């Protein structure tokens, strides 16, 4: 691009950026809803480039023009497990149009390691939402990563091993060490995924995972797992010998399905004041408490009071439209 074209691009971006900020906010909210609907824990962020950042990009990537620049709006979703990536990609595909995603790990082949993530170009609205943000003008670049992939991307961002091209230019020994390090991150990523599917044989773990997948459909607030296991252990006897799988299938899932609209309201009430909310409302076992409070309030109250403050249970009950009285 010429100096005049760069200057023109700067002016256009200053004028147009506010509408792209609105676009990025809408995309972020919609993607958060998609992530929630899958019951997956993920960090979702979207932002329109700052003016100086856009100019830098045009100076560095000379093949692009202002109109063709793919990441004027950048979106990032960071998940915990590799297994979450294809689930989210499919769900996003149901709501958005995009070019066939590039899996950077596939691009590297099986003999090299390096930057790994799913990269989606030209993420754009379709259907009625496209009226507000016409796809020809409003599109974003989406990076879908695991936490480990995110770690690699972040530490390598400012280094000389940011991409394959730069890595190839490094001295042999340094290149080997970079590859080893990236390999370590990938091994860790795969192990984290595997360990998640091989749940530890501790009481409450299976139930926790089941509750967690429903909980993340309601909120992205991270729970305290130690507290969760304590509450689950306390309440399990109320199910009189049923297995954790049975509890999910026969009690929690039907209760969740029957009250999903109200539960969504409780966790996403725009006027909701959570400053006085129970500490247990933002824990997956809140759904277990809901089920027990609805079906056996007296039994629940009796076991709860043996370990936790009664006021906390009362707050949970009231939030769900239940009463201990």
């Amino acid at each position: 691009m010429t100096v005049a074209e760069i200057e023109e691009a700067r002016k256009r971006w200053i004028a147009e950026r506010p509408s792209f900020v609105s676009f990025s906010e809408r995309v972020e909210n919609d993607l958060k809803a998609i992530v929630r609907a899958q019951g997956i824990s993920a960090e979702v962020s979207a932002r329109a480039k700052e003016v100086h950042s856009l100019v830098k990009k045009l100076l560095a990537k000379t093949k692009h023009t202002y109109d063709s620049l793919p990441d004027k709006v950048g979106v990032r979703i960071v998940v915990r497990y590799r297994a979450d990536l294809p689930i989210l990609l499919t769900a996003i595909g149901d709501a958005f149009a995009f070019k066939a995603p590039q899996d950077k790990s596939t691009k590297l082949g099986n003999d090299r390691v390096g930057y790994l993530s799913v990269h989606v170009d030209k993420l754009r609205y379709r259907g009625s939402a496209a009226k507000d943000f016409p796809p020809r003008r409003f599109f974003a670049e989406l990076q879908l990563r695991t936490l480990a992939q995110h770690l690699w991307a972040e530490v390598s961002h400012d280094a000389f091993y940011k991409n394959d091209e730069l890595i190839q230019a490094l001295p042999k020994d340094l290149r080997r060490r970079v590859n080893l390090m990236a390999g370590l991150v990938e091994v860790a990523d795969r192990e984290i995924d595997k360990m998640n599917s091989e749940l530890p044989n501790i009481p409450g773990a299976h139930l926790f995972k089941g509750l967690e997948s429903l909980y993340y459909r309601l909120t992205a607030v991270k729970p305290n797992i130690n507290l969760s296991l304590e509450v689950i252990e306390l309440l399990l006897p109320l199910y009189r010998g049923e297995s954790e799988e049975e509890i999910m299938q026969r009690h929690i899932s039907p209760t969740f399905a029957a009250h999903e609209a109200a539960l969504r309201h409780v966790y996403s009430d725009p006027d909701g004041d959570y400053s006085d909310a129970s500490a247990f409302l933002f824990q997956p076992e809140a759904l277990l408490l809901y089920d027990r409070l609805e079906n056996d309030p007296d039994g629940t109250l009796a076991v709860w009071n043996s370990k936790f403050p009664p006021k906390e249970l009362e707050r949970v009950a009231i939030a769900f439209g239940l009463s201990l009285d």
Partner: protein
Amino acid sequence: MLTNDMLAMMAVRSVIFHDVPNQRGDGGPTVVLATEVTQIDGRRRKLLQDKLKRVLASRYSFGIMFAAETTSPVPDAIREFTTAGHGASAFVDMSQGLARHLHQVQHGAVSPGLLCVIDFVAGGHRGLVLMKLEREEGAQLELQRQGGQTHFEMSVLDNLVLTDGTRLFKTAAFLRTSEERDDFEMAACDNQRRTTDTIEMARFWTSYLGCVIEEEPRVTTAKFFSVAIEYINTFVTDPGQKTELYESLHSELHSNAPDITPRNFVRDYVPNDIQDHFREYLQEKHVSLKTFPKDTENIKGALKRLTYVSKEGVRVVAPEGKEGLIEVGEENIRVNDRLLRVGQG
């Protein structure tokens, strides 16, 4: 009946209070009507919502419906206001009308207090809440330091309402669910249903509201009784447990308490290992676990039982009025029924 989900989604919009003293023959104090709504911030809104949820979702709340014939202006005021398009001034006017009516009918042993009217929404529907609040006393302590000495100064507050100790109070919520005239989900609660209260006092709140209890108490009572008996006969196999449950059920129905709370009955009398199943069974058969007024009119016969004791110590307990069930001869007693089970104990 208002569901728990509706209560979970309840959001208070506007609130107004009116001071309603008792009506006296000599005139007495007059009603003090607020001319503006009370300003509420998030914290106050949440306090009101939480108090309402706690009382309306409690086991002591009950379903109500507008009475077919009533002189109370309350039903029409609610029908009118909850249709779309009413603003703040209409809310104030309507609530003043409700307070004036309360003042007209509130006398004798009914405690004076404040009438609180709340405009709310839940799940996209519009509703109104009426609460009658009584003033309570409390104390406030303030730390004082003077000349190196420290003490707490105590002051008495006699204008408290909705304190943490107020668990039950006169409340009613009306949520309009469609534009049809009487399409509402309603629930009420009343603290004045103790054994010592007169029937007139017990009925005061529903009468003021122009409402009646949703299901006739004699129908609800009979349903609870027959479903409980059905459960005991079908699922309780231990003869000792069975007898105890029969006895508990009968004593519950014969007691002086004006209400029955099935949830409490299960908690207090049903063995732990079958409590869940008993509750589920009651709910499957559409018996609410919440409180309802007791009326044994429809089961008078079934509640009367006769006990026959034989010379050898055999005891036969049978419901009175079932002709031919028990035949007593000179040398034998004949029970004309099918044997369900035999057990020891």
